[in-house]
């Protein structure tokens, strides 16, 4: 299972860390209900931060606040100015009545160079759907196209909201190993949201466990041993993951 875990140059690759994204004291309330309560979030250059939590924990809301798509009820968000962000939304349903192929969709980033568009699509392993209609893509293909689109912006920070949703297990594993490879090659930071810990665990530097407030945070190893985490996800799941995290550390 750990073939997509990677040896860890990520700690040494970046000498000088700078804070790309910093959100502090974020609260969001919808009609008296606190979706987020006093949440802090920081992403430094070169690191992968994963936000995990059950359904309704406010994960997507947090990402939307971080990206400036949603104004928090209170709290501040600071994105480094001029930061290039690549974003994969949780849901993307191409309007059925809008005829457009993948090439043109990629071109909407403003990148005109056809060869660069094609190359980027090949980089995410989807070169052959370059001329396909956007509406004809499967979930996995669409995900890759969106990733290619994010990469065309040459991002310093990739933000992925439940990137593996609606893709089968094999596809998920492939996607995360692809993500891991891209991250090493390009050296961008990643902020990722997931409710499935198994897959993202190996490729994560820091985990933030969210359930409307921050339950606990730290390295994957530390989080899986945290009582708050065990309470949220259940003894068994936590034990499996702890074992998994342990296994990852001992890989050579």
């Amino acid at each position: 299972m750990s073939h997509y875990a990677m040896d860890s140059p990520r700690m040494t690759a970046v000498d000088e860390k700078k804070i790309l994204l910093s959100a502090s004291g974020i609260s969001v309330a919808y009609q008296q209900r606190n979706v987020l309560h006093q949440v802090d979030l920081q992403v430094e250059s070169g690191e992968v931060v994963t936000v995990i939590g059950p359904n309704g924990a406010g994960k997507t809301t947090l990402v939307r606040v971080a990206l400036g798509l949603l104004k928090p009820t209170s709290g501040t968000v600071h994105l480094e100015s001029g930061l290039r962000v690549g974003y994969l939304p949780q849901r993307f349903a191409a309007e059925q009545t809008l005829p457009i192929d993948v090439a043109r969709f990629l071109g909407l980033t403003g990148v005109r160079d056809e060869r660069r568009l094609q190359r980027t699509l090949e980089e995410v392993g989807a070169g052959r759907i370059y001329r396909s209609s956007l509406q004809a893509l499967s979930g996995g293909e669409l995900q890759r196209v969106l990733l290619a689109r994010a990469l065309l912006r040459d991002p310093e920070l990739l933000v992925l909201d439940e990137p593996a949703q609606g893709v089968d297990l094999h596809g998920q594993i492939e996607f995360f190993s692809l993500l891991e490879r891209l991250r090493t090659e390009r050296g961008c930071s990643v902020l990722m949201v997931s409710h499935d810990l198994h897959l993202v665990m190996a490729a994560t530097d820091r985990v933030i466990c969210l359930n409307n407030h921050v339950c606990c945070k730290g390295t994957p190893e530390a989080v899986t041993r945290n009582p708050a985490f065990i309470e949220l996800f259940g003894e068994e799941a936590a034990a499996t993951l702890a074992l998994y995290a342990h296994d990852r550390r001992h890989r050579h």
Partner: protein
Amino acid sequence: MFEDFFVRALVGGVLIAIVAAPFGVFVVWRRLAYFGDTLAHSALLGVALGYLLHINLTLGVILVCLLVACLLHFFQRQKTLAGDTVLGILSHSSLSLGLVVLAFFETVRIDLMGYLFGDILAIGMTDLFWIAGGGVMSLAMLASIWRPLLLISLNEDLARVEGVRVDAVKLTFVCLLAVLVAVMMKVVGLVLVTSLFIIPAATARKFARTPEAMAALAALVGVVAVVAGLAGSYRWDTPAGPSIVLAAAVMFVAAFLLPERGSG
């Protein structure tokens, strides 16, 4: 063999069909058919305003449509009521208000049918200038926001993260739509204006592979509908506006029955 008024109607109608097409595809993609209807229904208030202030009626209609477009734009950002509910309320109350206000002008005889269903055969040279001027300006503005508007139509969040000024682009689009509705009212009337946006665009969808091809094809459908509608109207003495809309509808049905070209 044709009289002048018929030539003017033909030129005006064809111009409008061409200008309306690229807007029509966005109306279809962004699901703004009801929005366009609401704009059109408020146009009668503009007519009343024109009489009241003794200004050019088209100008009055443009002003009111612009106002309503801005109101709707900001209204729709509140999410307390469903969009179509808000539009339904505004659409019919503004139409009623227009009718009631017009009824107060006892001294003015208004051709109400002309405003409701269009009076394309009465298009004068001034109208042609309005159509041509407004049309060229609208098309130029639309061209300048084409790419961001396409992206917004596909995914608004993505557009925002990529630095598109989403609200400004959307507001620009609905204002252009308002100007166009005001100008188009002359041709098919406020009841039928939306059909000139959506029927050609919907007819073109099946045969287009790119957004621009769909707009171009919609323009072609619109032009054929205008020519066929006017010819039918001339030949059988049917009302011109509805004849144009019917011609477009016939083409839509024909396209629907035709087998699809290629895949996707």
